[in-house]
């Protein structure tokens, strides 16, 4: 199957009149992995996903889902896909079970197979005990879970999730993220869009950072962090004068720089987990004691800031 690629995007372009929403992007999602499209609102993530899902026709370029072109073999591509739209696409006056049953029929399921898949999906999304409740009586998080469940009914090989955790409570968010990881563990390929860097960092095997319709960086989380070369920044407070430990700390393995005065020091290090115990030990030997520690790990926010000069949530 095209060398293990579940999705292959080639120079995909979408223009809305003069507005270039997606500008010839290319990337691939390997089978069985989670790839996150990370970027601020308006970066072109949803437009990219809409093209993959068959909702928008590309202006140029093509994409392949399990080897099927979205332009010339759209029906087969759709069959391999489950799509979780950003907006809740459910019937509020029908129950969770009725919604799942209806959408199962739309995916071509019938009879006992349909009933079995609806039961299984209700278990997966954790709403088996609320299956008879009308959607309009559900909390935002429960609605989101049903919204995801619909896309899983026909056991697709690839699931596209467009910002599935927008506007929900932390508990439901946790449930959804755990669901995504579970599905991936079962072998499902996931293309996930988000503007929450924490979600992209937690879930993804690969991350494509998008901005202004372009993929501006692509790689694993660690590769992207290394791309900007930022080190962890440790802010430490001591109960003694800083200059009593500064010299010693300059020579601790893994520390690249120590600055500070009075009882406060800033240490730049490659790996805070390995360096921190050594700093404690060195401070003790110098007759001092560390009274507080703040660790600022390098993150995708910093990567985006480095690449665009703007914050991710701007």
């Amino acid at each position, binding site marked *: 199957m095209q060398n293990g690629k579940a999705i292959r995007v080639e120079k995909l372009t979408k223009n809305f009149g003069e507005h270039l929403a997606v500008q010839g992007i290319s990337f691939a999602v390997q089978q069985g992995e989670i790839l996150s499209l990370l970027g601020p609102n308006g970066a072109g993530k949803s437009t990219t996903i809409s093209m993959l899902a068959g909702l928008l026709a590309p202006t140029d370029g093509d994409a392949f889902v399990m080897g099927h072109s979205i332009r010339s073999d759209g029906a087969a591509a759709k069959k391999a896909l489950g799509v979780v*739209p950003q907006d809740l*696409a459910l019937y509020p006056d029908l129950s969770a079970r009725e919604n799942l049953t209806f959408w199962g029929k739309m995916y071509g399921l019938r009879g006992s197979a349909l009933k079995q898949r609806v039961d299984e999906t209700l278990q997966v999304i954790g709403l088996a005990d609320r299956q008879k409740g009308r959607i309009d009586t559900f909390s935002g998080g429960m609605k989101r879970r049903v919204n995801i469940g619909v896309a899983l009914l026909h056991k697709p090989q690839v699931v596209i999730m467009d910002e599935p955790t927008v506007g929900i409570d932390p508990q439901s968010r946790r449930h959804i993220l755990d669901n995504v990881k579970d599905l991936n563990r079962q072998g499902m390929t996931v293309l996930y869009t988000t503007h929450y860097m924490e979600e992209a960092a937690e879930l993804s095997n690969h991350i494509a950072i998008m901005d202004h319709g372009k993929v501006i960086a692509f790689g694993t989380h660690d590769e992207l962090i290394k791309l900007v070369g930022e080190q962890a920044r440790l802010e430490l407070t001591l109960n003694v004068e800083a200059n009593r430990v500064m010299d010693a700390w300059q020579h601790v393995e893994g520390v690249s720089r120590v600055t500070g005065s009075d009882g406060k020091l800033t240490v730049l290090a490659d790996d805070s987990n390995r360096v921190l115990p050594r700093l404690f030990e060195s401070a003790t030997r110098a007759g001092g004691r560390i009274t507080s520690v703040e660790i600022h790990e390098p993150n995708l926010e910093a990567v985006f800031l480095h690449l665009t000069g703007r914050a991710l949530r701007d």
Partner: protein
Amino acid sequence: MRVIDLALKDLSQIIRDKKSALFLVIMPIVFTGFMGLALGRGTQTDSRLPLGFVTADASGILSQNLQSMLNESKTLRVVSATDETQAAEQVQQGTLAAALIVPANFSAGTLAGDTVNLKLIADVNTPGGATARQAVQAIVARVLSMAQVGKLSVEQINAVQPFSSDAARQTTMLNAIAEASHAWRDPQLTVTMEDAYAAKTSSAPSSFAQSSPGMMVMFAVFGLTTTAMLLVTERKTRTLQRMITTGMSRAEIIAGHVLAMFVVVFAQELLLVLVGQMVFGVNYAREPLAIALVMAALALWTASLGLLIGVLAKVEDQAAWWSRIAMFVFSALGGAWFPLEVTGQTFAMIGHLMPSAWAMDGFQNIVVRGLAFGSVLAPAGILLAYAAGFFGLAVWRFRFE
């Protein structure tokens, strides 16, 4: 199969909506009764088509039979006119559906074997004019056949035993015509004909024969509020978009929604026809196939109109308002509230730009004018043409967002 599943889902949503019962069932029945009583009390109108009758052969046997049969018509109501000019003016003004001019030598000339032409003044482009011509032609054909019977009888008898005098010949002729006339009025064998006037009584139809189909047409259009809003809500909740991601084609989605709308309107019509027949005494059952054809055509037209409104409306309020406006325009101008025949030719012509007027014609050709199956073909065809037009527009304008 997915088309049917989609239609069933729509129907399930409509049935659950408590407002549906009010607008699709209760209000139409109540209004049918109310309008029927109001029309009956207020006007006591004879809804048969007014036919001007001018004869210069008042004493002629055929002319007398012609007038007598016209008087008994369930479709036509004979109105005396002084002369041809006045009758023509009245037809032009729309106060008469048609006028029949009988020349002085009609009876004598016809019985002598001459060709004597009757003159019918009518605008056959109007449904009233076309229906009147159809009805007059049927009656004239009967009268001419009576004349033929009279002539043949006289010839047969004369061949066996020649008449002793002209008076005897004349008496035999009149008797034969009288026998033929009697046979027409009380036939031993009846067959269903397009222009059969099989009514047992000549009394005017009840006012419910106006209100029942009228309210059926009105509430079929009003029912679009529910169905059009389904489509608007589906677009708003993004379920329409999601359907595309399941691999459903645009044609399947449109067909599913239209099927649901068709079933809703047809079921409503069926209920109103049953109530009209059993409660209000409107005789839909005399031509069930014809009624079913008009119902189906009306349901298809309103379903396609509902689809168009659902496609064009951006929000629920728009769908509701446009459906209401459609209801008032199509009902008022289409003759659902009062017969177009009483409004004059100009208004009737404008009214027939509305599909609803053709639906009313179709129903009333059966329940008021007593016509047969063939009389609904043109109205049903025109309704279907409107349905195709609205459907094409809706498909053209269909958007998922």
